[in-house]
């Protein structure tokens, strides 16, 4: 697999980056997929921001602890609860809003961490070559064959309920190899470019070369990957929570689905079952679309693998 694709020089040339960015943006916005993705994501960001409002209005709108004093079972939409209440009288809308916040948090931080590990390892591996390269790439191979969801499931079941941050970290730890491979390939092609050679001749340290010269050139690719990692992180967290292995102290969409399921409202409270599922699907869709559009701007041929996530 692992590539070896020729690079376009647009990425490597430091001059004209601003033009390139502007042109890229125009290309991006032209693409209906990118536009839809961005608009969808803006909606969810608004939701996440709005999640702070309901608990301020009335303590009964607290997504976790607030219960309506009048209601003690699942009810459909009403004036006080626009999306209805769950089985102990908590407001579904405020849970949904809080869920958006958690989803962003989980998605972005897990993706950021996995990209961080992936980029770092990829650059080191590609730059150092030889033994270090082989070792790191073998480890990458090993981690890559693990079905992340099942691994995190096993860990979570073995070590008791995991906290949300542990879950985020675990997702990140199992999602870096794909990125590091692509970054490594990119680094390999950069390594022998004249401007790197020039830096080496002038006596720049390895660290400086990696961060000053290689890093800026792999950054767009890393950012592209990040959007895809956000998608997979959100899905994994939601699936984990759905199966009952999430962090019970947080109100995530997966958790909401788990509550619907385990309290027996799955097939009788559509107002409770549908919103979280739709939100998970749409939010992951928006990040995915964003990634697709960015990819078309960058170069479709940069990416040959990891298409499925």
């Amino acid at each position: 697999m692992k590539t070896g694709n020729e690079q376009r020089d647009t990425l490597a040339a430091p001059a004209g980056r601003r033009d390139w960015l502007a042109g890229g943006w125009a290309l991006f916005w032209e693409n209906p997929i990118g536009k839809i993705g961005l608009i969808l994501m803006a909606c969810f960001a608004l939701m996440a921001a709005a999640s702070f409002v309901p608990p301020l209005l009335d303590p009964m709108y607290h997504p976790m602890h607030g219960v309506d004093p009048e209601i003690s079972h699942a009810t459909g939409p009403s004036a006080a609860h626009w999306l209805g209440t769950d089985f102990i009288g908590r407001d579904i809308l405020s849970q949904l809003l809080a869920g958006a916040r958690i989803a962003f948090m989980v998605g972005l931080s897990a993706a950021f961490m996995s990209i961080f590990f992936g980029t770092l390892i990829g650059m080191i591996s590609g730059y150092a070559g030889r033994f270090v390269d082989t070792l790191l790439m073998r480890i990458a191979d090993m981690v890559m064959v693990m079905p992340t969801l099942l691994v995190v499931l096993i860990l979570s079941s073995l070590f008791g309920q995991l906290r949300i941050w542990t879950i985020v970290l675990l997702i990140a730890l199992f999602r870096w190899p794909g990125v590091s491979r692509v970054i490594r390939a990119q680094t390999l092609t950069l390594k022998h470019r004249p401007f790197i050679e020039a830096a080496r001749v002038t006596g720049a340290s390895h660290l400086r070369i990696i961060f000053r010269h290689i890093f800026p050139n792999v950054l767009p690719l890393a950012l592209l990957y990040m959007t895809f990692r956000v998608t997979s992180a959100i899905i994994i967290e939601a699936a984990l929570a759905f199966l009952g292995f999430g962090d019970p102290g947080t109100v995530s969409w997966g958790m909401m689905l788990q509550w619907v399921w385990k309290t027996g409202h799955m097939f009788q409270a559509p107002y409770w079952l549908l919103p979280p599922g739709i939100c998970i699907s749409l939010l992951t869709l928006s990040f995915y679309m964003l990634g697709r559009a960015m990819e078309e701007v960058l170069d479709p041929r940069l990416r040959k693998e990891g298409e499925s996530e």
Partner: protein
Amino acid sequence: MTVGNRTRAALLLLCAAVLACASAAWAKSRHPLRIGLGEEPRTLNVWMASDANSNNILSQIYQPLYRHTPEETEMVPWLAAGPPEMEADGVTYQVRLRPARWSDGSAFTAADVAFTCRLIKEFKIPRHYSRWKFVDRIEAVDDRTVRFVLKEPMAIFLTRSLTIPIVSEKEWREVADAAKKQKKPLATLFNHTVERPLGTGPFVLEKWHKGAFLHMKKNDWFFGQGLRIGGRLLGPFVGEILFKIYGTSDVAMLALKKGAIDMYWQGIQPGYIENLEQHPEIRIFSSERSALYYLGFNLRRPPFDDPALRRAAAVLVDKSFIIERVLQGYGSRMDSILPAGNEFWYNPNLTEYGEGLNREQRIRAVHRILKEAGYRWTRPPVDDAGKVQPAAGLRLPDGSLMEPLTILTPPADYDPHRAISGLLIQQWLRQAGIPASARPMSFGALLQQVKARHDFDAFILGYGRLSLDPDYLRIFFHSEFDRERGWNMSGYHNPEFDQIAEASEKTMDLEARRLLIYKMQEIIARDVPYLPIYLPREIEAVRTDRFAGWVQMLEGIGNIWSFCQLSPVN
């Protein structure tokens, strides 16, 4: 190419249509009783089976000597012909057996009973051995008479020991002999695969299609057929039973509404009831349970080593709120370790902590209790003006700040009730400044932490299917059981209690024993090592359009009496 694809698409559609029609057209010529199970049974090896689903199947096959009637008031002879006759020495019992046959037609004899009991003793079979180790000898006097000689008089012999399922010597003799020669006899016995269990019950296993269903047929040799036991005429009147496996209750409920099953053999969440009640063919049974759901404290370390704090927690926990909100009203509050339904042994005059108080009154009461016990706050829950406020900075009587503590609960997918109760209790304790946080964790890890490592502050657990005999009071709180994997998980030590508990085990006179059991409940309610919270009801749903005759008893309708009495409608 395009035409080819169109043809292919058309073919696919046709296939789907044929399948749909075929499913609609399948006429049902037979009328099996169809029952949904929540999970696949683990095993058909009766010694290994400790899960509900295996026991559901095996209870149709292996039968005990005595069993409780649905009214639960008395034990009736089942495989036995009459009540056990105790000899004057008080330790020798004689039991006459009914003329019965195994499902292959061979005779059921006293030798089988003696073999079963000896097997338990020889292999020290977990879960059974503790009820048989005080039996000294078991003899088959003749084909139909067994004699048991005990080491000392035991109150629990009749109710606990003589209710074990009897297996056939023919089926198990060789297995047991081979296992004894192995390095790990018990493991060998447990891992013996049973394909076709040989029993005396109303049904026999025809086929177990792994991962999909079990098929049982009526046992023509069933000893009870046509007999009247416990005032009931026994069948079975059903020719076949199909057990189908549904992974989730949601799908099982759809299956019930669709008519794919006649009964779902597992308690369901109250959330289903409203919807199910709209179906005229579906009937809901809500039955008493013999269970205990409680908050347990760790008495081995601060802060819950102080009974005052435990009592304060007891006042803060609003049991009625949990029952109304979390159980949706399908349950009742518990104040004793014994369920109130166990009328003979239940002590009705116990302290009802916090009963009838509202939130604010509870906080005030706790403020009083804790202040008297020497606790201090930087910001007390009740200010000088007498107003309730958020508390902070709780200090123990020795002046140290109370460390954050955790309440362990099973995860929500295992039991949403306990997980949510944990969250509620966390909030209530915090109102008095007790820095509690609920932490659901996987069931295995939770038990390991509580039972084996004793590393916890508090936990919420439950026991289901507690025996009617209250001997478990002793097992839960006698200091002898405070050790690794012992059932005294709180680490409760009270010499006075131990003494009474030991006496209760051996007192044969019912009234005298009742007084001891009363006293034990009183001590526990005073010291609160466990805070009993709620007793949920068993909610089960059945279809009424094909079969009738479900017998409701303690723990629900899934019992042998139902299966012996059910008959097809029309």
